[in-house]
């Protein structure tokens, strides 16, 4: 079935066009064109906008705003976003990274969405023309979301307070067994004062490891200190099963990899 593409100069016009049945926004197309190639006929019209702000990365002090059309390659290569380069480079191979956008990653179902896992740990804000939404709320409601995402914004973490890990079987590029991002703040004596931990592949979309976060507060990042957090890592998770790994396997290895991330 033919897939009609409409291109608009403004996000406003694209949002209006997205009201029509059967339409979907086109980011880099790595998921949506792939689905069409695979015979998905639920989408008959693709809509995109070429508004320049969608492709802009703005860094002012520690405040970062990344346009939704910015690619993983652009983030990985940006001189001021070094802390996020690892998470951006975790997405696919070089050609995929030249195409895959931040906006699309927010919608990518597990086992995809590695960059969204990083954004969740950073407590990012997702913007549309309609306003701003905390990423956690956005991810929870994304299935019903029709509006064009325009950007994501967050406070840039200090290099040593942000950690990211993707576990895959095929190196250097492979689909996630799981991914974990952690934003941790430590006091001068090394105890954890705040923790946000996000998990990929442990549900159909990125999720917080709230019990593990709570168990880290007031503890040090030692094997003993993190033991309660590792014991609680799986709380509330319902990992996916796919050709890469079963839900059982993912649940088994999560504490091992969370431990490696925290002790790194």
């Amino acid at each position, binding site marked *: 079935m033919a897939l009609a593409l409409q291109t608009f100069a403004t996000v406003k016009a694209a949002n209006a066009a997205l009201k029509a049945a059967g339409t979907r926004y086109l980011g880099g197309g790595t998921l949506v064109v792939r689905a069409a190639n695979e015979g998905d006929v639920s989408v008959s019209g693709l809509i995109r906008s070429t508004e320049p702000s969608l492709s802009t990365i703005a860094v002012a002090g520690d405040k970062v705003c990344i346009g939704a059309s910015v690619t993983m390659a652009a983030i990985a290569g940006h001189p001021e976003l070094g802390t996020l380069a690892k998470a951006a480079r975790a997405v696919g191979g070089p*050609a995929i990274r030249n195409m895959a956008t931040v906006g699309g990653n927010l919608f990518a179902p597990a086992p995809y969405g590695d960059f969204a896992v990083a954004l969740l740990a950073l407590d990012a804000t997702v913007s549309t023309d309609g306003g701003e939404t905390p990423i956690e709320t956005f991810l929870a409601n994304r299935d019903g979301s029709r509006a064009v995402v325009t950007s994501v914004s967050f406070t840039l973490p200090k290099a040593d307070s942000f950690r990211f890990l993707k576990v895959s079987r095929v190196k250097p590029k492979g689909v996630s067994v799981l991914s974990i991002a952690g934003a941790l703040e430590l006091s001068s004596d090394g105890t954890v004062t705040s923790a946000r931990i996000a998990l990929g592949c442990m549900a159909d979309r990125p999720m917080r490891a709230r019990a593990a976060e709570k168990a880290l507060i007031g503890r040090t990042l030692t094997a003993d200190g993190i033991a309660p957090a590792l014991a609680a890592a799986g709380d509330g998770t319902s990992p996916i099963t796919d050709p890469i790994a079963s839900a059982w396997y993912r649940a088994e290895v999560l504490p091992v990899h969370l431990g490696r991330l925290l002790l790194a």
Partner: protein
Amino acid sequence: MAKIPVQFTLNGSEKAEFIDSGTTLLQALRDKIGDTSPKGGCHQGTCGACSVIIDGELRLSCLTLAETCNGATITTTSGLAEGGVLHPLQRAFLDTFATQCGFCTPGMIMAAKALLDHTPNPSRDEVVEALSGNICRCTGYEPIIQAVLTAARANSQNAA
């Protein structure tokens, strides 16, 4: 449905075609323009056989809609040889037996070219990373990695 005009530069020459909206660049190149060097392996973004270079960046033509390439500059493997003389990457692929059935070769060469254009003297790890989106079922990869390193050396000798 009305046909859509697209225009781009392919391997140095201007191309203009009328296509159906939603046509992938891979379909446009192979079925409309007649450049069959990009191969359709999976149409899912996973094999890399359809890799082309668009405005200096490696992309998958199977996941790119042709109409998004209006005004772009596209390079495919069929545009690499000059006046019958093979590109150093093509030469190296032949010399190191990096091509067997050949189906992955044009995609591999595009991925390698995109690397060498930005990083003329890559390390082995950089070559492996650059080829990581491309699958080969024949060679076991090692000859391909050697071919890219050989072409890089040939380039740097020519530049010296």
